[in-house]
């Protein structure tokens, strides 16, 4: 149990003087000021107001957009990757997480490593792959590979082909064109 020092009238002049000094201390964080007068910490109370105002924004995430070159705490250390400026620590905003593995198309088809390599080399963009699969689903051809695994081939009228595995992963892409590159519409 702790007494409420602000409620004790005899201590009033000293408490007022303390509050005044604390309030003027620009080198303290809000939480340090609160601790000095016997209050507990609050969220986002670790920033120094005078300096944080220089960054033109209260939201910690703003910094990652306005100051992309802001130094970060090195990876491997506690809180590694967060933005830092002396005592500042800003966590970048939570954006969409990258798909695990080798990425995915907008429709959610995940690349195998081979599929990603060949799609890049052969100019099969993610949008083109989605379109080939979506527009040729009714004529897809099922095959079984050497390991007995099923694959599905989606082929458009120009011969651009996307091969998917049973999980919907992109096994490979190719066309009958030069170096198997995607054949665009004439």
């Amino acid at each position, binding site marked *: 149990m702790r007494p409420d020092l602000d409620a004790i009238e005899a201590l009033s002049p000293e408490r007022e003087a303390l509050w005044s000094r604390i309030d003027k201390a620009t080198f303290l964080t809000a939480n340090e000021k609160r601790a000095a007068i016997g209050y507990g910490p609050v969220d986002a109370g670790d920033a120094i107001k005078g300096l944080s105002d220089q960054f033109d924004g209260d939201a910690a995430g703003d910094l990652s957009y306005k100051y992309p070159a802001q130094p970060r705490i090195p990876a491997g250390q506690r809180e590694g990757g967060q933005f830092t400026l002396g005592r500042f620590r800003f966590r970048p905003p939570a954006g969409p997480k990258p798909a695990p593995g080798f990425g995915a198309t907008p429709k959610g088809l995940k690349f*195998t*490593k*081979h*599929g*990603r*390599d*060949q799609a890049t*080399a052969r100019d099969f963009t993610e949008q083109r792959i989605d379109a080939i699969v979506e527009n040729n689903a009714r004529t897809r051809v099922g*095959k079984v*590979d*050497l*390991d007995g*695994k099923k*694959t599905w*081939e989606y082929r458009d009228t120009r011969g651009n*082909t996307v*091969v998917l*595995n049973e999980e919907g*992963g992109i*096994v*490979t892409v*190719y066309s009958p064109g*030069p*170096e*198997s590159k995607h054949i665009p519409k004439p």
Partner: protein
Amino acid sequence: MLMSPDTAQGVYAELSFALKEGWSFIRYPEGFRIKPPPGSQARADFKGLLESEVWRIAQFVHYRDFVSITTNEDGSYTVVSKSDSGNAFQIVFEIE
């Protein structure tokens, strides 16, 4: 240089499409072995036929980062291809 499962599946699908009728292939840990149609070795133009098929298939299946074609002592060919991401495979074109 072992071939990864997803490379094996991908190259298998590509060879299945690209190889001409009569040519066959099997898989082994590093890649694939391709055999010409039975009896084709007796043709006078077999060497040219084989070379042209080696070149055509290598162009079709290779990773863009690296590809090599080697003539072996026995007259067979070995195609090796690698990607910067670490994928790799090889294809041996056998002559018998």
